[in-house]
């Protein structure tokens, strides 16, 4: 045993001296080695907490020399909080003989070390604890890391849950580990409903088998380490479905294996709606352009057709004069000439109406008496109706109230509806076809126009998409009529809809605001 080294053997406590020396010595050597080389603080204290022994590590780490420590209460080296912890734990320690706690040790130069402290009682020959062995492990680093981790975790959570996008975490088998609050709220579900489930079996995808399938396939690729991105839809509360820009982003470890997959969704419903609107607008513009071209053609055609008609009428007139001056007037021939002239005039009127209908027209609005407009239109319709043997009834009760409208456009919408009715009646070979045009004051502020027929009605599967472009069950026709019709009515701040309650036929309703007494004109 070297001098200067504090050992149990040198202290006044030497309970084991009378035991077998050899065994003791071995044990002592073992203890000594452990004691000297441990990278932990080791103290022996008395029941009051006075330090009897310290190991070299204490000095090297705390900066205190042994003689500054030995004889002191161990609590002196603790922070105030730790002193209290110590006081609390001591009774338990004395009773049970062991205790664990976390305390804070203050070094000589004022640093605070976080320590995990374990205390064990050393029994004497009477099995009473006369001293305690205190081993303290420095967990400052560990605690800092833990705090940093907790901090990081908090920050992650904050971002994770407050982003407007849908984010989650999946394991490489497709099991959902986490979902952010936004995604949960969107579908009205809780974490526990989905965590642990296969992602494609969660409620977000319950609306479409097709999207589920796509997801599974996309996931397979993501699990292999590829970033996958595509547009899909997810189910929300109240049966709504949102279009999302969806991606699966694999996270790899240092070995290149995929350990996590991050599903992310950005709601693009609005963007898609805008796209659809733009597309529809484009289609309608193209259609208008064609109409405009037609208008030009029609104007040219009208001019061309009016030339031979002019010559025809002039010739007939002259022939009529010549015949009328004959001594014996051939009445029959004169009569036929007059009829021929009449027909030529009729041809001219038809041309005029066609031109009027496809004219480019300007978009300016004027004051329109809707009853009058419909009356004028019915003249134009007469010859069409004569052919289809359909009876038209007018029930106009708008009492002369006027709307602010582009009369050509309103005519177009009504004519479109009427034509559709006539065609439907004709195709269904209904013999007593009836078309009814009604107007009435809907409220103080609006007029209701109804176009009804007793045709075959509209098929249930067409009803949803009635006003979308390219919806037609006709052989000819582009199916733009109702789509454009709706645009026109909307531009007039009105509404157009299919009357769902009409049985035995079809009925379309148009509501338009009337000019109020105090409207600026």
């Amino acid at each position, binding site marked *: 045993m070297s001098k200067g080294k504090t050992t149990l053997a040198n202290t006044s406590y030497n309970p084991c001296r009378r035991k077998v020396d050899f065994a003791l010595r071995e044990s002592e050597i073992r203890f000594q080695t452990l004691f000297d080389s441990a990278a932990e603080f080791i103290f022996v204290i008395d029941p009051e907490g006075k330090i009897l022994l310290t190991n070299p590590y204490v000095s090297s780490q705390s900066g205190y020399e042994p003689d500054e420590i030995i004889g002191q209460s161990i609590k002196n080296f603790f922070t105030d909080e730790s002193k209290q912890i110590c006081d609390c734990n001591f009774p338990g320690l004395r009773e049970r003989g062991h205790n664990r706690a976390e305390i804070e040790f203050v070094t000589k130069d004022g640093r605070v070390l976080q320590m995990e402290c374990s205390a064990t009682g050393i029994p004497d020959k009477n099995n009473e604890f006369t001293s305690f062995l205190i081993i303290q492990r420095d967990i400052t680093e560990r605690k800092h890391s833990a705090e940093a981790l907790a901090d990081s975790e908090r920050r992650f959570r904050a971002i994770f849950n407050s982003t407007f996008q849908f984010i989650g975490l999946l394991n490489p088998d497709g099991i959902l580990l986490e979902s952010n609050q936004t995604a949960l709220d969107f579908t009205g579900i809780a974490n526990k409903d989905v965590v642990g489930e296969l992602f494609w079996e969660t409620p977000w995808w319950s609306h479409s088998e097709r999207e589920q399938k796509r997801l599974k396939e996309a996931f397979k690729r993501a699990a292999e380490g590829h970033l996958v991105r595509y547009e899909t839809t997810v189910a929300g509360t109240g049966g709504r479905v949102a279009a999302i820009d969806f991606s699966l982003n694999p996270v790899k470890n240092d070995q290149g294996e995929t350990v996590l997959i991050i599903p992310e969704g950005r709601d693009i419903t609005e963007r898609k709606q805008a796209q659809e609107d733009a597309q529809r607008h484009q289609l309608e513009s193209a259609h208008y352009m064609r109409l405009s071209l037609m208008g030009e053609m029609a*104007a040219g055609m*009208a*001019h*061309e*057709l*009016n*030339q*031979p*008609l*002019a*010559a*025809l*009428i*002039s*010739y007939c*007139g*002259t022939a009529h*004069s*010549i015949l009328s001056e004959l001594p014996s007037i051939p009445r029959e021939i004169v009569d036929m000439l007059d009829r021929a*002239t009449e027909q*030529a*005039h009729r041809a*001219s009127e038809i041309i*005029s109406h066609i031109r009027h209908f496809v004219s480019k027209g300007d978009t300016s609005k004027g004051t329109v008496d809707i009853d009058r407009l419909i009356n004028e239109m019915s003249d134009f319709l007469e010859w069409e109706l004569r052919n289809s043997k359909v009876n038209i009834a007018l029930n106009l009760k708008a009492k002369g109230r006027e709307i602010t409208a582009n009369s050509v456009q309103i005519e177009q919408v009504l004519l479109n509806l009427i034509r559709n009715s006539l065609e439907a009646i004709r195709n269904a070979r209904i013999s007593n076809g009836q078309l009814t045009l009604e107007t009435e004051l809907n409220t103080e502020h609006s007029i209701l126009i109804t176009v009804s027929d007793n045709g075959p009605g509209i098929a249930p599967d067409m009803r949803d998409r009635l006003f979308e472009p390219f919806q037609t069950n006709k052989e000819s026709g582009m199916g733009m009529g109702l789509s454009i019709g709706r645009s026109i009515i909307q531009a007039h701040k009105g509404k157009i809809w299919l009357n769902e309650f009409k049985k035995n036929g079809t009925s379309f309703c148009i509501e338009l605001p009337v000019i109020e007494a105090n409207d600026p004109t």
Partner: protein
Amino acid sequence: MTQPDNRIFLVDDDDAVRHALKLYLERENFEVHEYPSAEDLLDVIDDQVASLLVLDIRMKGMSGLELQSKLKSRNIDLPIIFITGHGNVQSSVLAMKEGAADFIEKPFENEKLLESIRHTFKEEEKRKQLNAIKSALTDRYKTLTPREQEVMGYVVNGISNKQMATLLNVSDRTIEVHRSRVMTKMAAASLPELVRMSVTLEINGAGRVF
């Protein structure tokens, strides 16, 4: 040069229209010269003289409206009746603003054209007569001395002799003499007639003819 009062120039690029209208108008005793284009008409217009032009608007090459404008710039003042196959409101308004006599849309009854032609001729006649009268009155007015013209201006505005005397700083008698000379030179039988003459001549109170 006296203009024949029944010579019509007809310009339309459609052969059938020209033929049919010429047939009809000749039966109604008009002398019809037909041209298939505005350019063809312009080639001969200075040499030939007509009373009236029946013109299509939309033709291959120069349009009827362009022709109207060209004739104006050449100071050829012929009444024009436009016949047209495409009733365009803007064209018709423009044509009338530029001084057309009438505007008819094809197809039309023969009689309609006839009526329009007759009416136009009548109006032309009236216009010519009015111009002749104006011309004669202007000649007479020019024979008045400046003082006499001044007096005439006051007289037709109801200024009394006495007032005139004061205004012109002469005697009543002088005024009476001036007045008498005015009536003689203008060949007006009464004051009202003199007033009518002054209206035709568009004289204002200060004796200036516009």
